[in-house]
């Protein structure tokens, strides 16, 4: 059978590309499998993990524990380190052969390199950096009721519509758009890390996972690039996405950057959390890029998010507004950050910051 992305009836099952680096699976894989499980259940089809690498069979069970019925496993020495050429060739060959109806990738630097290359070759649609996915129209309507100002009940809906509805922020977070790929398959999306919830692993599912080894061909001559080295970052990177407490700084620390950072660190240490920053703080070189919260940085949802001297541009808010509790300290009472804050203090971070650290220390001691 030839491959024709327009013959949508030929395509079946939900696939998740499961990225591994140096033989270790990524957290995003588990988030995507957990979400993919729901989509597969909605469609009444199988959930399949797509795993590429060199000697990575041992990872298959872990993928099963997060909901994969099957793992499509492609192993080769040429797949040890990620290269666009090798990964795109193997994925496209296998997809053209087995024909999944949905293909999801984590929106990592690798996923966002690989997915568009594949979508272009497969002649199908790809939605970038999604934050929400739906199949069922009633569920999608529920989502809109909670997250939009649209007149959901005054709109005419095709309740039987089974297209994957891929929702994402656009225009720096000013707009949300739901994208569909109605005429081609697979419907493809990259999904933002840290946004979808990962389910609890299930050992029974892990033991039941089926491994499928498809045919593919890959020669050294298929690679137009050579990986000379893969280096880990020299310093320990901060885990903003997994943090329960984040203290972020913005342009407000400009008057004394070192002091402002110290105040944020002290408060973060007292809370047992980490320091983040707005785009202004990262672009000014005050903090490293791994600490950036926002549309072009990371999306976080800690228990407590403290914004010190951050005005609250929309591109920042889109990355932190789903935090459980937001505390904002800013000299300007009209700063937009107060629009999303649960608790606002209009004051100077250089004086309020240390007082807040002391107050939290005292409140904890009093417990």
């Amino acid at each position, binding site marked *: 059978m030839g491959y024709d992305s327009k013959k949508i009836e030929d395509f079946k099952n939900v696939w998740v590309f499961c990225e591994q680096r140096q033989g270790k699976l990524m957290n995003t894989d588990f988030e995507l499998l957990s979400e993919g499980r729901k989509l597969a259940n909605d469609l009444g089809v199988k959930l399949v993990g797509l795993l590429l690498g060199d000697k990575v069979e041992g990872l298959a069970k872990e993928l099963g524990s997060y909901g994969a019925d099957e793992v499509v496993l492609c192993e080769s020495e040429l797949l040890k380190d990620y290269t666009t050429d090798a990964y795109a060739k193997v994925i496209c060959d296998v997809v053209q052969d087995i024909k999944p109806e949905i293909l999801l990738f984590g929106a990592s630097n690798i996923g966002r390199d690989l997915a568009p*290359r594949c979508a272009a070759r497969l002649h199908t649609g790809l939605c970038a950096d999604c934050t929400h996915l739906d199949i069922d129209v009633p569920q999608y309507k529920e989502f809109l009721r909670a997250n939009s100002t649209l007149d959901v009940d005054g709109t005419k809906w095709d309740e039987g519509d089974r297209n994957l509805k891929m929702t994402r922020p656009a225009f720096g977070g000013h707009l949300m758009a739901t994208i569909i790929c109605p005429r081609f398959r697979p419907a493809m999306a990259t999904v933002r890390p840290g946004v979808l919830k990962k389910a609890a692993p299930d050992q029974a599912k892990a033991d039941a996972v089926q491994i499928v080894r498809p045919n593919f061909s890959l020669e050294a001559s298929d690679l137009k690039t050579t990986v000379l080295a893969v280096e880990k970052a020299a310093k320990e990177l901060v885990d903003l996405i997994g943090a329960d407490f984040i203290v972020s700084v913005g342009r407000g620390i400009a008057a004394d950057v070192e002091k402002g950072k110290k105040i944020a660190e002290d408060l973060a240490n007292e809370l047992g959390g980490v320091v983040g920053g707005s785009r202004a703080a990262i672009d000014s070189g005050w903090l490293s890029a791994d600490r950036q919260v926002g549309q072009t940085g990371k999306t976080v949802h800690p228990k407590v998010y403290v914004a010190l001297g951050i005005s609250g541009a929309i591109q920042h808010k889109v990355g932190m507004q789903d935090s459980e509790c937001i505390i904002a300290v800013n000299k300007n009472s009209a700063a937009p950050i107060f629009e999303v804050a649960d608790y606002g203090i209009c004051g100077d971070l250089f004086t309020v910051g240390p007082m807040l650290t002391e107050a939290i220390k005292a409140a904890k001691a009093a417990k």
Partner: protein
Amino acid sequence: MKIIVCVKQVPDTSGKVAVNPDGTLNRASMQTIINPDDMNAVEAALSMKDETGCEVVVVTMGPPPAEGMLRELLAMGADRAVLISGREFGGSDTYATSQILAAGIKKIGIDKDDIIFAGRQAIDGDTAQVGPQMAEKLGIPQITYAAEIKKDGDSITVKRMLEDGFMMIKMQTPCLVTCIKELNSPRYMSIGGIMTAYEKPLEIFDYAALKDDPLIDLDTIGLKGSPTNIFKSFTPPQKGAGVMLEGADKNTCAKLANILAEKHVI
């Protein structure tokens, strides 16, 4: 050797953004800028030109006023510019856009030692998809998220950033590289550059100019040829503002700490 740089004129989403009642963007009310990551791509090309004397061609797809942006880039030091513009191209998603840009680049011509630079992503869509999709349509290799680029002979070596480190990758030319802000600091226009910007060649490729390319088919470009469609667009609801605490002193902080303690968040 030449370098082709793909750039995009975008609304300045960091400023005030007006949204129409129907949930679409009021573009007329917005300032336009050259997409920030694209400026790093332009700088990468111009510094390679400083080193090797190669030719730099800037190319964009957009409405006729995008010519102003191209003139600015000519003033910065680019040698010639191409504006791809036509009603048939409107409404294209990333797939359709990459087909049109790839056809435009084929018309400019890619030789064995040529390189295409683009920004990592544009601040209006934030997709980062057009670069890789273009590379695929042109059948050339790609490296995204470039933080360092070195040319040597018929290959380039690129430091490609990952979230947890980086890779050093060697790639044959012709090839495509997408650039991030860590790569360099973009230069300004020079007075001399501004004087000569209007004398440098600026070509316009419309639908008629590109239609003979196999990539250009009314079924694979524009709104109708785009595999993805917008199902709904909406503005996120503003989260209700919480409590503005009175004062900014020790008492205020103590009150807040106690609320957190009562709610068992600390």
